[in-house]
């Protein structure tokens, strides 16, 4: 179960041309949050909105589709979205909050829901938790190194970034450049190296690029809440789907990458435990399934 518990795996994309144009992949997060907002399933969403510097996101409470769409596209650096959840509930007075989170953020949110020691009346207001796949993340200065130093491009000119096919890509108005992922090694956030979750196993619904063709996303519906909003959006014609079996490279690749991440990071966990360093997870020798997320 390297992909966690899920109900259904599908390849999907937004049917909205505008979303297709700005989305990282299939535009699933943008489409679902906009739909949930329109249908009043949520009354706002915490997203990684644009910040002062290009490609340096700021967590934001989006109350309109326009604000949601302004947050579309992957930024390969930190956006502490969980920070904003309390603000969404208190300052914005939201009753049903949607959010998008990478695996570690879903872990912070789920832990807070099960054990809300100090977080008063926030846990029950999380109405929709969309997870995105995440192999690793980078400090902003690492991104600057890749773009400005290694590729010699000003970040303002970059229109899209992507990691795929063993490379880190940037796209400008008239150019596409890449560096091999090998050159990004050593620049990752070190906290990522003990992470045992690739596909946001605790989200209501998870999505990401791996497994599906360009312009499409691989979707895993997990909870009733995630499944129901996805089905409603498909029925409303806002999302089109294909069976995973019909697309290439398919679920096998997703499983392989998830397994690779877990195997590598479990090894790091074992090494840390052997050194006597703290880590909130178990050694592989203590676990029935060394790839499980605990």
């Amino acid at each position: 179960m390297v992909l966690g518990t899920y109900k259904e795996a599908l390849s999907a994309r937004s049917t909205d041309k505008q979303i297709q144009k700005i989305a990282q992949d299939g535009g699933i997060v943008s489409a679902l949050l906009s739909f949930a907002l329109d249908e009043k399933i949520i009354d706002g969403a915490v997203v990684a909105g644009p910040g002062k510097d290009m490609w340096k996101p700021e967590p934001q409470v989006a109350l309109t589709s326009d604000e949601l769409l302004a947050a579309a596209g992957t930024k390969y650096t930190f956006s502490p979205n969980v920070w904003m959840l309390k603000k969404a509930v208190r300052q914005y007075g939201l009753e049903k909050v949607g959010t998008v989170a990478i695996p570690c953020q879903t872990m912070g949110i789920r832990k807070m829901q099960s054990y809300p020691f100090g977080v008063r009346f926030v846990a029950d207001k999380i109405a929709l938790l969309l997870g995105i796949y995440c192999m690793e993340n980078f400090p902003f200065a690492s991104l600057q190194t890749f773009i400005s130093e290694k590729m010699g491009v000003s970040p303002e000119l970059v229109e899209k970034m992507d990691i795929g096919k063993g490379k880190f890509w940037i796209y400008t108005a008239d150019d596409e450049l890449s560096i091999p992922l090998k050159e990004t090694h050593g620049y990752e956030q070190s906290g990522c190296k003990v992470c045992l979750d690739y596909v946001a196993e605790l989200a209501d619904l998870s999505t990401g690029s791996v497994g599906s063709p360009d312009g499409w996303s691989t979707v895993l519906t997990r909870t009733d809440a995630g499944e129901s909003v996805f089905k409603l959006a498909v029925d409303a014609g806002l999302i089109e789907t294909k069976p995973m079996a019909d697309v290439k490279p398919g679920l096998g690749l997703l499983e392989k990458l998830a397994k690779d991440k877990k195997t590598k990071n479990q090894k790091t966990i074992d090494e840390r435990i052997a050194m006597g360093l703290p880590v909130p997870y178990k050694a592989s020798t203590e676990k029935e399934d060394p790839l499980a997320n605990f």
Partner: protein
Amino acid sequence: MLARIKRFLGMEAKPKEDEKVPVEKKVPTEEKKVASEEEVEKVAEEKPKPRIGYIHLSGCTGDVMSLSENYDILAPLLTEMVDIVYGQTLVDRWDIPEMDIALIEGSVCLQDEHSLHELKEVREKAGLVVAFGSCAATGCFTRYSRGGQQAQPAHESFVPVADVVKVDLAIPGCPPSPEIIAKTVVAVINGDMDYLQPMMDLVGYTEACGCDLQLKVVNQALCIACGTCAMSCPTRAVSMTAGRPEVNSDRCVKCGVCYIQCPRSWWPMERIKKDTGL
């Protein structure tokens, strides 16, 4: 009734798995006091309607107010599920009776003989002693007390109750959320040891500070920039700068919640699986 309360709390338990997997207990602490699992189990088994006392030491009453904010379930909780047998602001009784659970709010002033006496007496008369709220659990902002004020200039030293008596469970928070209080009480009634395990482990976490985020998370290569710490801080002492928590120590009240809520301090995966069905 229990079912209704569980539903309210989002605790609708999935069918229990047979194997008991202990929840992670990785709250690093120098002086971990041994928590008495048997005591909790005894309360759960012998007393379907536990007798609860509330003891108010050097606290602000905010913790018991937080308990009362369980509006929807408070009346049935108080009348059908527990007996409140003692407590200033709650019960008109002056002598301390025997009780199953003592919720102690506030730290203890070492210069105040009466507080010390009351605390020791409660320890003798209570099955379970709970450090209720951060003042009792970590000292919280009474850690900054240093005496020199009228009418008791000598009253300067305030410590978490675990420094003086054996504590069984800690529910930190300034205040603890209404939900965690209700969840804890329900778990005690059910003898749900898995759920209570972190509260037992947290008994040893008495020297809390916002700086723990730096020492125990960032310094240990564990921070992942999620922002959970900044969200949970009750005084907005924690903000995120370049993806790392930045603690304004002039605002930090040492409640410990930022570190406790961090997904990289301890990780209750089994419980989350039960709660989410994932």
